[in-house]
């Protein structure tokens, strides 16, 4: 298990290559990378993530342990940044390794659904109209609930 909570930018491709190079012929690796979104009709100039690092590490480790057991993953990595990020920068990357694709996909999806509601990060968007806290979404709770 590899869980990292950091302010430094990471290279999504380099992280994936390092993950794959240690895959030992496992068969299936799935990767999800979340990047800072800025839409033409709703532009943002910066995304600031606040974090409680000690709790984030504990929560992410618990979520990875749960996913590993549930989907028989061989390995899983979660990298999550905090601090101030620009549009297009990677925020989060989840990588899973398993003998078959189904478990790799499902494991990555489970990890993302859980960390969105259960890991202590809070997003604040800055755009032309100022800065506001992103509100928690009911669909994120629903996405997590379907794994119950």
């Amino acid at each position: 298990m590899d869980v990292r909570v950091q302010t430094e930018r990471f290279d999504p491709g380099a992280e994936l290559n390092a993950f794959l190079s240690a895959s030992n012929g496992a068969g299936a690796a799935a990767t999800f990378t979340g990047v800072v979104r800025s839409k033409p009709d709703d532009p943002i100039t910066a995304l600031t993530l606040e974090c409680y690092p000690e709790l984030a590490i504990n929560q992410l480790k618990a979520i990875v342990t749960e996913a590993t057991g549930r989907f028989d993953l061989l390995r899983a990595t979660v990298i999550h940044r905090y601090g101030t990020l620009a549009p297009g920068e990677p925020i989060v990357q989840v990588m899973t390794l398993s003998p078959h694709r189904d478990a790799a996909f499902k494991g990555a999806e489970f990890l993302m659904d859980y960390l969105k509601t259960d890991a202590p990060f809070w997003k604040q968007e800055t755009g032309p109209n100022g800065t506001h806290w992103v509100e928690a979404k009911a669909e994120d709770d629903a996405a997590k609930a379907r794994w119950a």
Partner: protein
Amino acid sequence: MKILYFAWLRERLNRGEEEVSPPPAVVTVADLIDWLAGRDEAFAHAVEKRALIKAAIDAKLVTQAAPIAGAGVVALFPPMTGG
């Protein structure tokens, strides 16, 4: 015990942490929120939507029903929005 605040709760209170000594009648996290709200109008206003407030004790996520006896650090914060 030390209390940590995060995100809009921290902003509304204008502080990220404070040291408090609640009386013995304050048993759970919910009691602690009530007690803090009772001493401070700004706090009462900030936690108006009481059910939204999440908590952790010593970096472990808990519910508002969790007892705070022996806690070193209690964190209070809004729903999480990472990912």
